[in-house]
């Protein structure tokens, strides 16, 4: 039996490894239009910072693929025939399959910009290996850069450019940084750190036009707020969307929404065809529809799709959300819910005076912990997850918070010396 996987990102590769673990006799092929070997997309910024080589981005030694019996093929899918059970690649090659997993990932979203047609050079994203090559090639000839986007990739690209001596302006559409993940107080800490670091931050504005010089290189960016920002590089980091364009025109397309529609077993509308990772739009048994575009979900979905394609019957359960990041040099950990909550959701905000160090405990209707946002120190997300699952009262969690610390030895963040306020998630202080 042949398992064909389209996409060698973390979802596709995890699917391949999981399927191999379940079935040693399975023939497995990984197709990629981007790279010969699986690489860590989340590490692109460290390559740009010159801290990792391209080869360092590969999570597995190259001999692993032969040993695991996973064949790698370069190519872009141009056709899918679910009845004949074949896939055609852009080179003309046709691959037969018995089970197919679509893990095509997500691509950068583009900002509608006036004057974009005249630009031949200087507008970049920061999602693919090709983007990294472009950014590196452009950096030496760039003095000033504008980065549009108030999420993780935006801050990463800004930090990298700044590291290479480029004067960077980060333009945020909203009035603060990363509003879907961070409440105003935490956002302000991160923005303050960016500014201290030397990155200029403009909030509440959007770019609407670009202009090119004679050579077609970006010369300036104009914003709705009336700003004219001279620059030689414009980074557009306003999020990603499922890469499913190619699937819209194939002979037998699976049902598509914003992504490839799958049920809770990650099955598409086509028999024996699965989808996982950033390209999948999951419809859970409860009728909830969601696209998760983070590394951890892609891996978790890859495990389920790989297992099911190899004969398993696992359902994908959306885990308690968690994420982490390094925002310039501020560690960030979140567990549980923080997005999509009513602004009046009560929270307990604990801050260290004068330092970018805080914890916020989000409270459910019964006073139980439903979410956690920590900045400035490391946290054991597993223990916090357990407390959320067990619906521990916020007051109890507050008193036992030290148990979830994950600090380096000799640093014991003094949790008893923090200012505490009870505030709603979004909006002014209610009581202290």
């Amino acid at each position, binding site marked *: 039996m042949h398992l064909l996987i389209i996409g060698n990102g973390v979802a596709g590769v995890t699917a391949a490894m999981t399927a191999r673990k379940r079935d040693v006799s399975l023939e497995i092929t990984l197709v990629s239009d981007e790279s010969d070997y699986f690489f*860590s997309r989340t590490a692109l910024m460290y390559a740009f910072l*010159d801290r990792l080589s391209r080869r360092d981005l590969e*999570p597995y030694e190259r001999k692993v693929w032969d040993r695991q019996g996973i064949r790698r093929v370069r190519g872009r899918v141009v056709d899918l025939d679910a009845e004949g059970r074949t896939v055609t690649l852009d080179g003309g090659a046709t691959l037969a399959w018995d089970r197919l997993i679509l893990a095509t990932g997500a691509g950068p979203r583009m900002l509608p910009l006036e004057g974009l047609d005249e630009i031949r050079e200087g507008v970049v994203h920061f999602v693919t290996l090709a983007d990294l090559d472009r950014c590196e090639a452009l950096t030496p000839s760039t003095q000033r850069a504008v980065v549009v986007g108030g999420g993780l990739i935006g801050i990463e690209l800004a930090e990298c450019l700044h590291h290479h001596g480029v004067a960077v302006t980060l333009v945020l559409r909203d009035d603060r940084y990363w509003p879907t993940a961070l409440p105003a107080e935490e956002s302000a800490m991160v923005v303050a750190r960016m500014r201290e670091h030397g990155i200029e931050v403009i909030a509440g504005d959007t770019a609407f036009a670009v202009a090119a010089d004679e050579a077609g290189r970006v010369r300036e960016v104009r914003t709705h707020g009336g700003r004219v920002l001279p620059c030689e590089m414009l980074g557009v980091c306003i999020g990603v969307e499922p890469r499913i364009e190619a699937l819209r025109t194939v002979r037998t397309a699976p049902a598509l929404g914003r992504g490839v529609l799958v049920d809770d077993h990650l099955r598409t509308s086509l028999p024996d065809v699965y989808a996982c990772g950033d390209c999948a739009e999951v419809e859970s048994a409860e009728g909830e529809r969601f696209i998760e575009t983070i590394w951890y979900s892609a891996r978790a979905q890859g495990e389920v799709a790989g297992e099911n394609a190899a004969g398993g019957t696992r359902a994908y359960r959306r885990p308690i959300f968690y994420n*982490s990041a390094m925002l310039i040099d501020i560690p960030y950990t979140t567990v549980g819910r923080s997005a999509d909550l009513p602004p009046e959701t009560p929270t307990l905000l604990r801050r260290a005076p004068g330092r970018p160090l805080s914890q916020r405990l989000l409270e459910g209707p019964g006073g139980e912990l439903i979410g956690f946002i920590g900045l400035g120190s490391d946290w054991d997300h597993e223990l916090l997850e357990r407390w959320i699952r067990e619906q521990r009262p916020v007051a109890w969690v507050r008193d*036992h918070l030290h148990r979830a610390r*994950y600090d380096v030895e000799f640093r014991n963040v003094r949790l008893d010396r923090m200012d505490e306020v009870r505030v709603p998630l979004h909006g002014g202080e209610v009581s202290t």
Partner: protein
Amino acid sequence: MIRQTIGGRLAHDIRNRGLTAWLLFGLLSGFYVVLYFGVDYGHPQTGVERAQAWLYGTFTVHLDAFGAQWLSFGSAESGLSYAGNRWTLYALLYTLAMLVGGAWMFHRYRHNPYQMVRTFSVLFLQVSFAFSVPILLKFFGHPEYYFSYLWPLKIEYLDPAHFEYFGEILVLYAFFASLVLTPLLGLLWGKRWYCSWVCGCGGLANTAGEPWRHLSQKGSTAWRFEKFAVHGVLLIAVASTALWFASALLPEGSAVGGWAEGTRRWYGLVVVAGLSGAVGTGLYPIGGTRIWCRYFCPMAAILGLVQKAGRFRIRVKRNMCISCGLCSKYCEMGIDVRAYAQANRDFVRASCVGCGLCAEVCPRGVLRLENVRRRDPQELTLDSLADGSWR
């Protein structure tokens, strides 16, 4: 590689096996050849000796003349041999290199208390027990003794031929420190108590050698070689020591005495001068900093075995790794840390010296050095039993 300034390019070049890195390698290796083998430069006979004399004359005589004056306290009467001066000068250069690298470490990792404490510890022990104390001991007519170096790293400390010279207190110390303290602390805190907190070899690697730590060989082939090599040297060290004890116990004039003498000479030449000095330090700019520690140090081999049985481990947060590879890249022992992190496995590797840089560079706070056997240790109190929080 997109560094634009000349300084940036040079820094990249010397840190990434460029031309300047090879030049530095040549310089360091030449220095070690001269240091260990360039003794009798007064009457060069062979071509090699003449080359050594030239090297020695060009690079070290002036330094040595300068060093000899104030390191030997200017007294020929204190009984200092010429070689003694040379080693004191070497110790001075070594200590200075560590202090400069240490200052850089303090600056670079000022936000990380583990790195600060660890760096302070190696610097303090280098300046005191590995530099000042031996000089003072010698000055006051006592045997020159390095309390921070233990058998089998300093293999002659358990060689019966030297017992009379060291005296019973130092010999007792050597036995106690090597055979009791080493395994005991290793069980409690892992190998790092010695390799990252005390040892001068590790101290140089983790200070002056820091810019080259990422050059260590990763991959399973290097790992296989490491296991073979490091335990091989340990066997040789133990066998040599056994031979020396045998020759001390057996009546004089037996064949064992000759073999013992031979092993002393060869161990000194190959392991001490060759592997720990010329190869171990000379290769910094090409092969990374801990080549001696990882592949050859018999002390590290013992501590590694102890570590596997002890409490130290690196804890991995479940499902938090993004496989970026910074931990593997900056592991000076060539451990593929990422392989464990992305597989959600806490781990103990014999070679891990507990420098803590993997945890420091991790952008997602996945890794943590710990000295506990159990995960999430809970204090069992009546309160925690009552409210169920012990669970």
